[in-house]
């Protein structure tokens, strides 16, 4: 009896989690016959699979996908590089100032994102010699119309540095010392000895970074509002809102959303084991 209740509860929550996604996939397949029926059909009489082709024909979907992939991969690679390098330095070297830098890494995480939107927007706009700016004549757009504006504010993740440091600390010093005696350079010790030891943690960081930045919305929208050629999937779909206002365009919007969601869900399912190892240690 108790077991029945337990699985009934889990099943109910699972249904509440899945149903909204199912509703989106069903909605994407509705055709004009369904939306203009009175009352409109919930289940399409004739599923319009062609909607997924229309998404690419009628919307700049290819461009958005390209931007999403390029921006997300660049940020992921850079975050992994900066987090592992800094985490290793904080974990495995003794030097004056380490204490202070570690406190900075902890403290920086306290500041909410909304504090940075305005100042960073203008810092990027006022970068000298970029986007029409002179050395002191700063009337241009700076880096705002470039990929750099989407990537630069995210090249370091404080939490990632902290996480990598926690894993590097567990590596025995003797291992690194031995390599040092063999005359290995410090970078080589980092790259070939230390990094492989924490490979699962590094992959986890990469996966989290990828998912987070694939889905990033507010910042990207803020800096690409007037640069459609730089918009990513979620931003592009959001800013084209007006195009989806008519009833029969709703299914197009739902299909576009499905395309924006599919890659991460796919990645998530494939790498599920690794993903959850991380959420449980984190």
């Amino acid at each position: 009896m108790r077991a029945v209740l337990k699985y009934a509860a889990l099943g109910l929550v699972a249904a509440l989690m899945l149903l909204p996604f199912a509703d989106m996939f069903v909605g994407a397949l509705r055709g004009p016959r369904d939306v203009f029926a009175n009352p409109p059909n919930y289940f399409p009489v004739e599923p319009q699979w062609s909607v997924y082709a229309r998404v690419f024909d009628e919307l700049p979907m290819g461009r958005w996908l390209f931007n999403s992939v390029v921006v997300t991969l660049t940020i992921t690679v850079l975050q992994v590089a900066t987090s592992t390098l800094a985490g290793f330095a904080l974990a495995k070297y003794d030097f004056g100032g380490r204490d202070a830098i570690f406190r900075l890494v902890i403290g920086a995480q306290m500041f909410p994102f909304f504090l940075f939107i305005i100042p960073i927007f203008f810092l990027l706009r006022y970068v000298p010699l970029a986007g029409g700016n002179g050395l002191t004549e700063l009337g241009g757009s700076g880096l705002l119309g470039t990929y750099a504006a989407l990537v630069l504010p995210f090249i370091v993740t404080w939490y990632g540095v902290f996480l990598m440091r926690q894993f590097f600390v567990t590596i025995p010093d003797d291992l690194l010392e031995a390599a040092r005696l063999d005359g290995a350079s410090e970078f080589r010790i980092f790259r070939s000895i230390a990094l492989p030891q924490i490979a699962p943690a590094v992959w986890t960081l990469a996966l989290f970074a990828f998912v987070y930045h694939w889905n990033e919305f507010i910042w990207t929208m803020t800096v690409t509002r007037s640069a459609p050629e730089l918009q990513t999937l979620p931003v592009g779909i959001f800013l084209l809102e007006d195009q989806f206002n008519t009833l029969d365009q709703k299914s197009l919007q739902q299909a576009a959303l499905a395309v924006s969601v599919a890659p991460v869900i796919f990645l998530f399912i494939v790498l599920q084991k690794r993903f959850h190892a991380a959420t449980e240690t984190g």
Partner: protein
Amino acid sequence: MRKVATAPGADAASGAVPGVATGAVPRVARPGAMDDRAPGAPRLAPWLFLAPLLVFAAVFLVLPLGFSIYLTFTRWNPLGSPSWVGLKQYEYLLTRDPVFWDTLGHTFIVAGGLVLFGVPLSLALAAVFSRAKGRRVWRAIFYLPQVTNIVAIAYIWQFLLDDRYGLVNRGLGLLGYAGPDWLTDGTWAMVSVIVVMVWYELGKNMLVFSAAIDGIDPQVIEAATLDGASGPRVFASITVPLIRPAVVFVTVTSFITGMGWFALILAMTNGGPRGATDVTALYMYRMAFEDLRMGRASAAAMILFAIIAVIAVLQFRLLRERAA
């Protein structure tokens, strides 16, 4: 010259984060190794490794925060240059702005709703989940919203909550109820926002709780059960107190999330209908990028940040003390 003994900062560093192990053996015994090394390399290496972080901290942390604080004392439409107005922006927001306090009220309702409903629900779900079979599948399903972009989340729920043709009101209609105007009535719109936030955060919070529950010594639970206590009773009086750190963590992070996270609201209701779901962070964003009032928007961001910081510290103190 070269640092051979343990650096003076090392002990302080290990004290900064409790529970984090540092190398137990002091690193004194390597003078031989040091002598054949390229001079200076071990001293220079950590700074090279940290260089990107330090540059980033200067450019994307210290500089913007400083700039932001400066902006709060100015009036600035970015077409011109900022003009110093002292505390006028703070004064305007706190005493004369017609909606600032409303948005602050909404912010507290959202954050409060997320804590009040989100924390107990995810705790209850974790209780059931932690003793279930097939955990990997359940977990994947509950975590699904977390990997979905917020625009999709917002629109999916707009479709579901559509007054006439949404799945929710169709379902209620089949049961003979006329569903409410989920997104076009002010009160219901607020309810909708909180429901979607709780739904979105449920899986993440549940995982934190279930990880904490997994860390409990099973013998403790077993002993209580043998004493004849029922499942729910054991959970409430033994499990929950044992995972109090996780409860504190989820409560405080949920609260902070609820106070400052406006992406979902922007995409789902954009503060509407008629400002009913307008929260301070969203108001700040519109002030900056629609009205181009950068000084006032910066002041609004700073006030919100101060409130969040104070309450987060209070929550931590209060909840931790009660544990002791």
